[in-house]
């Protein structure tokens, strides 16, 4: 177990480094000039910053300076467009995205998995068809349509909910719902497929032959294996949810992390870009690890340690 986690973490470091390499060269290839920002940074400051972050050095040197600064000083550089340290930007916006993401995740699991189970149990009935049609709507109607609709239909009519903004405890509800909807739809489909797959296995017939009630057959024998595809999906999906969504943040004016991805890419803010990309990579690696550990707990055949083979 320990060896497995250690191995995966070392592997993760390699992945992070590869990720850094790719973003580094992409950032360098981007057209335009850093430090051309809305905030007026004086020429001397620019020179100073260039020197500080080694932007005046040749590319190979720059390639090495950034990660070594992260390791030695935990310094992720300064956002050239915002004029603030990248670390502060992440430290400020990540908690917001985390709350939003946790809410979205609760919606996704709370709605998606029960729908998937009900659909699988009532396979090919009108209940199944209508639930799956609803799930399809969740997949086919973009968040930038659902978000505004929710604002008009719900936020405007329900007291306590605001159309947009962040600050009150209830403010996370609508954006979290919007963000979680797509995942809920995918989860519903994955859970349905997974449970159906398990329900077609021979050991389910054994369970029936033992005289178990249909409910017990599904809960005790069907669910455990049936949830495996959903668990595998949830790892990366959760990482994506807690690292923010530009669209949802824009619609509901949430000061999360998603905006920085897009803004950094647009304004050629290379430190911010590399910082958030590495942070996202880190989240993905951790979530994948957690979902693998969960898979091992659910499925004794891939118990960790053996999985390393």
């Amino acid at each position, binding site marked *: 177990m320990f060896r497995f986690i250690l191995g995966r973490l070392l592997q993760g470091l390699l992945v992070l480094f590869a990720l850094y390499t790719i973003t580094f060269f992409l950032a360098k290839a981007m057209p335009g000039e850093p430090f051309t920002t809305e905030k007026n940074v004086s020429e001397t400051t620019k020179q100073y910053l260039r020197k500080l972050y080694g932007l005046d050095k040749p590319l190979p040197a720059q390639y090495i300076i950034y990660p070594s600064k992260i390791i030695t000083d935990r310094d992720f550089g300064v956002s050239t467009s915002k004029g603030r340290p990248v670390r502060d930007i992440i430290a400020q916006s990540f908690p917001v995205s985390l709350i939003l993401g946790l809410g979205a995740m609760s919606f996704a699991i709370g709605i998606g998995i029960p729908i998937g189970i009900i659909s699988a149990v009532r396979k090919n009935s009108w209940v199944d068809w209508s639930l799956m049609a609803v799930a399809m709507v969740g997949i086919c109607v973009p968040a930038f349509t659902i978000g505004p609709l929710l604002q008009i239909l719900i936020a405007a009519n329900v007291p306590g909910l605001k159309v947009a903004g962040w600050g009150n405890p209830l403010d996370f509800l609508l954006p979290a719902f919007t963000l979680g909807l797509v995942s809920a739809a995918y989860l519903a489909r994955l859970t349905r497929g997974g449970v159906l797959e398990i329900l077609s296995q021979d050991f389910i017939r054994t369970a029936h032959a033992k005289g178990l009630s249909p409910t017990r057959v599904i809960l005790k024998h069907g669910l455990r294996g049936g949830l495996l595809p959903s668990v595998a999906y949830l790892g990366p999906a959760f990482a994506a949810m807690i690292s923010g969504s530009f669209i949802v943040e824009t619609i509901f004016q949430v000061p999360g992390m998603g905006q920085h991805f897009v803004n950094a890419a*647009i304004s050629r803010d290379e430190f911010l870009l590399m910082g958030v990309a590495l942070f996202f990579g880190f989240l993905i690696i951790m979530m994948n690890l957690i979902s693998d550990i969960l898979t091992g707990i659910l499925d004794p055949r891939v118990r960790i340690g053996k999985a390393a083979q």
Partner: protein
Amino acid sequence: MSEKTPEAGSSLWRDAWLRMGKNKAAMASLGVFTLIVFMCFGVAWFCKDPNAVTLTNKFASPSGEHWMGTDALGRDLFSRILYGGQISILVGLIATAVSVCIGVTYGAVSGFAGGRPDALMMRIVDTLLSIPFLVVVIVLQAVLSVWSSDTSSWIVQHWNWDKTFTDRLTNIVPLFFALGLFGWLTLARIVRAQVMSLKEREFVEAARALGYDRFRILFRHIIPNTLGPTVVYATLTVPGFIMYEATLSFLGLGVEAPNSSWGILIKEGANFMETHPALLIIPGIFFSLTLFSLNFLGDGLRDAFDVKASKD
């Protein structure tokens, strides 16, 4: 034995097609999608200029002149939807084609090679999968758009192409690549898994025992057997790409004016949602119908190709 003439057998493709024919939702989806494609690529040429601005006729209601009314600049909505659909559907199809080409080749080579090369190639896929897709697409778009405007002016200068047309073309081509370059990852994994299991099948061993070389085994015996899952997955990828294009366009990062796409139409419509909901709802319906039909089609294909569903 008998002197009968050989009767034609029923191939797996034909069987799958017959099974699919019995799936009403999938057949209806196929019909809807064909109709939309026909409208966007056939009917559109006979429609009004989608970019003709008539400021005197803003927000017109549907009429014989403008079947679905006009938008905030008095442009014909119907014609804009059809022209926008061209871009959206093309982005979906071409990006899928790019990712199928890369994904099938990569996955097949990785799975067939096995051992260390396979492990390395799969680590690369894992790494690429942990890159924030949206960020890379945006950056790639930015990188490629410099290249695209250069190319555009070069083509106009040297080949005397129509400037508007060339600009429109070079504006969307980077999008195909940006999407296609990252869309192949999942497909590569699927194909690899298929190849790995096919490699152990006895007909491949029989082929080796018969002395067939690696190329014959890979291209005649293994890859044709991965095509079913590939077709299914590709069908389900198209709506994903259409959605990505819409998202990027909504962010103002995808298709640029004067091109339009469904993403742009929805974005424009959302601005006037409270006063003229039709501008959001009509493009939204086209968009969602296309995605619906492709998803149901993909589900139908998956059921039709499902090995377990076939006999014995």
